[in-house]
């Protein structure tokens, strides 16, 4: 019997941890913007890819 009680308390505490994690994430503003984070994660970290081209004179047609 005591085992079941222990398991019960353990399972509810685990669930409670997830509940608090959820409440915290809402409070933290993680649901404020659902578009940018998934896009942001795909960006490479700053790796400047300078397209060094000899500065040709612009030949505008105006």
């Amino acid at each position: 019997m005591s085992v079941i009680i222990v398991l019960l308390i353990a399972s509810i505490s685990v669930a409670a941890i997830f509940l608090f994690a959820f409440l915290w994430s809402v409070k933290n503003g993680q649901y404020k913007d659902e578009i940018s984070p998934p896009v942001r994660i795909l960006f490479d970290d700053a790796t400047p890819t300078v397209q060094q081209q000899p500065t040709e004179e612009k030949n505008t047609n105006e």
Partner: protein
Amino acid sequence: MATEHTSIQTTCFHCGEDCGNHPIEAYDKHFCCEGCKSVYEILNNTGMCDYYTISQNPGNSQKIKVRENKFAFLDDESVQKALTVFKDNNQTHVTFYLPHMHCSSCLWLIENLHRLNKNIISSKVNFSRKEADIVFNHNHTSMRKVAELLTSIGYEPYISLQNLNQLKPRINYSKIYKLGVAGFCFANIMMLSFPEYLGIDDKDYNLTYWFRYLSLLLSLPVVFYSATEFYNSAFKSLKHKYLNIDTPIVLAIWVTFIRSIIEIVTNTGSGYLDSMSGIVFFMLVGRILQDKTYEQLNFDRDYTAYFPIAVSRIKNNKEETVTLPNIQLNDTLLIHHSELIPADGILTKGKALIDYSFVTGESMPVEIQMGEMIYAGGKQLGSNIELLVIKEVAQSYLTKLWNRSAFKKKEHKNEHSFVDALSRYFTYIVFAIATIAAAYWQFHNPEKLWQAVTAVLIVACPCALLLSNTFTNGAIIRRLGRNNFYLRNANTIETIAKVNYIVFDKTGTLTTGRYDQIEYDGIPLSQTLKEKLATLTAQSTHPLSKSIVQWLQVSGNRKIDGYKEIPGKGIEGMVEDEWLTIGTQEFVLKRKEVIDNTSTVYLGVEGKLVGKFIFKNAYRPGLRGLAKQLQKKYPLAVLSGDNAGEKNFLQSLLGFHSVTLFHQKPNDKLQFIEQLQNKGYTVMMIGDGLNDAGALQQANVGIAVSENSNNFTPASDVIIDATQLHRLPAFIQLAKANKKIIFIAFAVSILYNIIGLYFAVQGVLSPLIAAVLMPASTISIVFITYGLSNLYAKQLKLQ
């Protein structure tokens, strides 16, 4: 050499727009304008060309240049203060609204601002709100410089008077918290209930005490926190002596709760705590689904969202920045090209060409003579002007109009939903059943009376109705949103279904608001005459002249002498050997004008009439089909602030029973709607600019048409994308289907209630039956509402 490129269509490397006949070539790439090229240069020089690899042609067209010094007002301290979110010794946090943001490249670039200016410490984008939180070091750079940097890369911040007055509404997360707590408690209570449902060994029987009391403990947050969502509205409705759907639900929750406590304490049963917390959980889900909001849209805009935050004032021959509320009588304001006039005033310097389309719906810009009045809300086209203020901002015609009480009237919109009425009948029936059951058991077995009555109340709570309603509303709102028809809230669906009179605005709603279509009537123009004409019209900045230049499609490089522009009349000049005049009838023919309702420009050669250009509004595509469908079912009306030039066309378009009124001022529109409502009509008004704002508010359903998502729409119940206007009948049909779907879902869920009642009246409703019925009925409701709304949408050919 430009002609070489005309055959192949080149698109701008930066913005992806067609480069036209004269693409700019640089760095092996084509650009449509100098602006796009310079953005590319900035990014190329700082090694930020990743911008172009994330999405294709991510930029915004830079054809329209932003005026230099436009952001000079950001040097003003009171403006800075209004925009600053947080400030300490080194850092300033500011949030800019960047309406041009549209793709992942934009996101990347704006979040890498610090690479363009090392004094920008960080920038973080909120894409759904199109905002960027920027932190910069104000000792080394300024807010103005940040704004100018953003502008230089094509993301001009939009700063309006609204920033000065209003705090951003905070999103309310309380429902989500409540849902989280309810979900946690529900899941655990259910888990604790299983042993009893499945049967528990006698020797472990004392375990059930543990389970039951733990369940009771877990149900407390549900009853005292999560369910408060329903208490508030139930309490409010009781205060107004009106029974809404939440009242019987609260009753059921409390009956269930109290009965469960008694059963547990007296050790006679395990109560219905799992069913109760489950139903609270599902009802909260429904409410949240129904409250779908579109963060990027704002349904509550007033005139302040359109007005600039500050303008230039000339004081002692010096230009200075003044915030709008600080403009005083007799100030001289300097209004730049395409700036909005913030206060009523008199023109004292410069050539004023005011576009009032936003305020009055007139599509033609008006030329104003020196000493004449200019009203707030107009937009100056052309060069800079000076204006003597004769009424402060708060006293201006437009502002006063807006602040009038009629413009704010909104109460009639909170009509009671049919769901509330339905739930009331439902409640009466339930009470009747409960009374009959009570009477029966009173005679036969009084001990069972309490059990039977409470069980009836538990089973028959109209939560199924609430679930059907909220889930259906949520599904329909999402459907419509996917088709760019955005609803302010769920109540609007029901009102749309009730509409029986539809009123349109013309300029900007039925038409695109631009004079794109030109019809030429007269002696055919020869190539030489065309070129001469182009030479003459190219001299003028008047929008009609510009349209004619475009229409001619020839380049005019002829010699011109004696060019003269007479404001409000026309232009004339000697082009090579011919004297050309273009303008009003009076101007060209030198005789008194015959009243002409169309927008027509006459062309004279050597004083003789050659022909005339008739300017026509470009109507939105699909309008004929829209009108045809709508006029079968609804009386239609068009209220236009414009001249009656297109009356006949509109009548033929909308049918001969339709009402077409012209020269309508904002107040006339409002009153027209009010009169219809007094006659008992439920009116839908479809409009765009500020001139329709009052009517949109007054109407039972106000629909604002938006050209693109960056555009600003006046306060309304619905925002529709202009390209979707022709599908309005389908949207109305879907709104009507909403009620049917709710009825069907409710009818099905009643079957479950009847099964439950069958046990309840006998006083033998076991917690297990309740625990099976509740999720079963919820799941069937979800399937029915989503299935049916998909089916209807498909039938109506909606996405």
